[in-house]
């Protein structure tokens, strides 16, 4: 070891010009590659280096190639001379798909999960977390590494898949579509795997999550295989080779991709939020994604509603998904801490407009409660507007029964009340529990599950104990049960006998719970922006000064 007084000085500011190696000047392409390599995500570089040396990757890749070759030889041998006459493409393709789907849908996503979980177990994540890498860069790096492995596996089996096209019976669009969705599925599952890896640092929970993740991935693999088998069977009927030229093909796929991408973004933000430091804002981005996700869904539903001329199934799908979406998201958001860190308070909206419209994106259970209610209310308002527009629709005639729309209005109104009531009750319970224990998202969601089970289970037990023949399947006891009541309204409309009870009791309960929560919401609304500490402002000013280009020196005496 050489220690020479002050010898160790790393001067990161004074980088000299690039020095050529010997007399050889690097070409433009080499320089471009050097710059590109320099800008690559640090984790992607490290994990690629690790993966290329790892036994797991080499074994998987070797097995993939070997299986591909064995299947090619075995398949050709089995088909025999008939290879010139028959259509054996789908059969061979399915074999190759099985070989490819296992690494893509099981190995790569599980590897992504283990990559994060192992960093937590071996405490390497701690050292990673205190570098200059942000949480999103960490997630992107891990995801990039999974995507790279996926591409390598895909490239290994691509010649085999191309070979199946020559065997006839399978169209190019089908091959590309299956490729595309398998890749998308692999990436999405890897994203979920990364999120699961961030969930806990406790070993026993990690073991449980590992088992659940493995089971889920095997199910995804099995589901993917079944789906591909069905697509191959229906290849001729669907005429996918002509699909490229049909508008519906593109619209349908765009809708699916939108859905997958929006959930991908949500899980990505959730994973990044999990590894962000405690004082940072972990909530606002998630709320923006939730809103954007639902706006996209609303757009697709509106499009379907318009082209179908107001088909009632679309409206019902919209209402049910809206209720579940906002209730589910609300159940998680109300588990946030009511205390805003000083860091978050530095960035609170300041203007009147900002405080009115953007406060609901601030972290906190109260603002989250209002955010979920406002989201659902907005959704239902859109649905009501769509219903009101129905009579003047250009098509003129609704393809659906009028009673269905009446039911939809009741369903929307009562659904909103139930969501307000359950989220509000959960919020009150969270506040009570917080007095003697920590409350997080998991606790808040578990409390919601408990509430729903209680409010639906008890009426169901009472109903079954007092069952009489010829009696209506709905009674006053069921008012407490959102599932029972909403299902009844959806299928048969408002129960005649209990209508007044439902119309009074459910909104009243929602109103009372809402009012009880208002003081907590107001407390969160009182948070105002604070100035950043002096030291932070000093550094920001220094950094800003470095970014401003120096003013040109005036050389002309005529310049002022």
């Amino acid at each position, binding site marked *: 070891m050489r220690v020479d007084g*002050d010898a*160790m000085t790393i001067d*990161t500011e004074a*980088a000299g010009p690039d020095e050529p190696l010997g007399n050889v000047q690097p070409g433009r392409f080499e320089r471009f590659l050097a710059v590109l390599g320099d800008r690559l995500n640090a984790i992607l570089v*490290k994990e690629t280096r690790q993966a290329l040396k790892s036994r797991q990757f080499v074994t998987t890749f070797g097995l993939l190639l070997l299986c591909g070759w064995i299947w090619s030889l075995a398949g050709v041998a089995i088909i025999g001379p008939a290879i010139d006459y028959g259509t054996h493409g789908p059969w061979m393709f399915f074999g190759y798909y099985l070989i490819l789907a296992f690494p893509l849908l099981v190995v790569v996503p599980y590897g992504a999960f283990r990559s994060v979980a192992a960093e937590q177990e071996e405490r390497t994540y701690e*050292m990673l977390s205190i*570098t*200059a890498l942000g949480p999103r860069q960490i997630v992107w790096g891990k995801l990039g590494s999974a995507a790279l492995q996926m591409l390598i596996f895909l490239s290994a089996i691509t010649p085999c898949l191309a070979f199946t096209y020559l065997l006839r019976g399978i169209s190019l669009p089908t091959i590309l579509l299956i490729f595309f969705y398998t890749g998308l599925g692999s990436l999405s599952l890897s994203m979920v795997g990364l999120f699961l890896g961030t969930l806990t640092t406790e070993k026993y929970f990690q073991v449980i999550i590992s088992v659940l993740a493995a089971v889920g991935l095997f199910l995804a693999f099995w589901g993917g295989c079944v789906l591909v088998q069905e697509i191959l069977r229906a290849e001729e009927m669907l005429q996918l080779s002509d699909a490229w030229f049909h508008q519906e093909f593109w619209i349908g796929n765009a809708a699916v991709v939108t859905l997958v991408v929006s959930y991908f973004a949500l899980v990505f933000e959730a994973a990044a939020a999990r590894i962000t430091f405690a004082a940072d804002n972990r909530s606002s981005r998630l709320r923006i994604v939730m809103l954007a996700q639902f706006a996209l869904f609303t757009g697709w539903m509106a499009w379907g509603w318009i082209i179908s001329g107001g088909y009632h199934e679309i409206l019902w799908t919209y209402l049910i998904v809206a209720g579940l979406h906002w209730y589910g998201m609300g159940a998680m958001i109300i588990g946030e801490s009511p205390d805003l860190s000083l860091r978050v308070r530095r960035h609170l909206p300041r203007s009147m407009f900002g405080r009115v419209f953007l406060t609901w994106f601030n972290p906190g259970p109260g603002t989250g409660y209002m955010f979920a209610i406002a989201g659902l209310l907005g959704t239902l308002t859109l649905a009501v507007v769509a219903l009101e527009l129905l009579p003047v629709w250009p098509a003129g005639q609704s393809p659906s029964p009028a009673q269905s729309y009446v039911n939809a209005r009741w369903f929307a109104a009562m659904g909103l009340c139930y969501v307000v009531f359950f989220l509000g009750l959960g919020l009150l319970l969270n506040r009570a529990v917080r007095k003697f224990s920590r409350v997080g998202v998991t606790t808040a969601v578990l409390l919601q599950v408990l509430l729903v089970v209680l409010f639906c289970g008890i009426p169901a037990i009472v109903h079954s104990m007092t069952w009489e023949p010829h009696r209506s399947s709905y009674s006053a006891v069921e008012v407490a049960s959102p599932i029972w009541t909403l299902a009844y309204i959806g299928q048969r409309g408002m129960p005649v006998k209990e209508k007044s009870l439902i119309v009074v009791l459910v909104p009243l309960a929602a109103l009372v719970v809402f009012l009880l929560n208002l003081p907590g919401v107001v407390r969160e609304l009182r948070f105002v922006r604070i100035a950043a500490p002096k030291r932070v402002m000093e550094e920001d000013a220094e950094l800003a000064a470095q970014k401003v280009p120096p003013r040109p020196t005036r050389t002309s005496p005529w310049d002022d």
Partner: protein
Amino acid sequence: MITSHPMIELQDLHRHFGSTRAVNDVSFAVARGQVFGYIGPNGAGKTTSMRILATLDSPTAGDAYVDGFSVIDDPDRVRRRLGFMPDFLVAYANVNVHEYLDFFARAYRLRGKDRPRAVDRVMEFTGLDKLAEKPTTALSKGMKQRLALGRALIHDPAVLVLDEPAAGLDPRARIELRAMIRALANQGKTVLVSSHILTELAEICDVVGILEQGRLLAVGTVDEIHRRHEDPRSLVEIRLLGDAASLGKWLAERQEVDDLVLDGQCVRFSHRSAPKEDAALLRAMIEAGFDIVAFGTKRQSLEDVFMTVTQGLVQ
């Protein structure tokens, strides 16, 4: 830029794990370029407070600052100027020494020529340049410690937090590590270092803090702590020609002498006095006709002070 604030500051820091108060109201400050020795028995709260400084844990109450930035509210700014070396090595499988340091250089956003330059200098400084291609998992304990130090240094941080850097090192590596820490301090880096080897800390630290059961019992320069907590007595050992009993009798009459022990031609006793009075005593003995062959005094070391200040309590 010369800063008016301390480079490290802990303000009323608390960290509780259930009923255990791992860190209990700890406050101190470390100025730029100082080496602060953090000492205390196992479970005293050293690692916990160091982890809070490194933004790996959050305090229950209070705050800590690095270069004026709060570890709670601005951990991202703290991380840019802090290098942390934990008491365990963080090695990656299938990664060699060069790749390991290159990865962390990338993670600290060193670009272009800065990155290989930083990696090379760190490898040279820590003596790892000969082991560049060696897998990190195959390194010896000492080499792993050097690698961990190299990782903490890769982005040239102004503040270094080193948790037990000498643990498990052989004597030579310890001496080298001590020299490295001093060299870093000479460059103006602020170093917070914990160790169980108190003699080493006493040599390299400007300021020392003694922690027990989460409480900071003493803080200051090594001399200040000596003065504040040291027993004013010195232990004196005399070897003489002739009869030790007569010297014993002579000493027993003096009020400042205690704990007198006669051992052949040796006399040992404790002397309540300053070093100047030790010299006066020696002169008096010679003038009294005793043939003194050897006269030695021993003042308390940092280890003695540590034993006096702490009570060996665990929680």
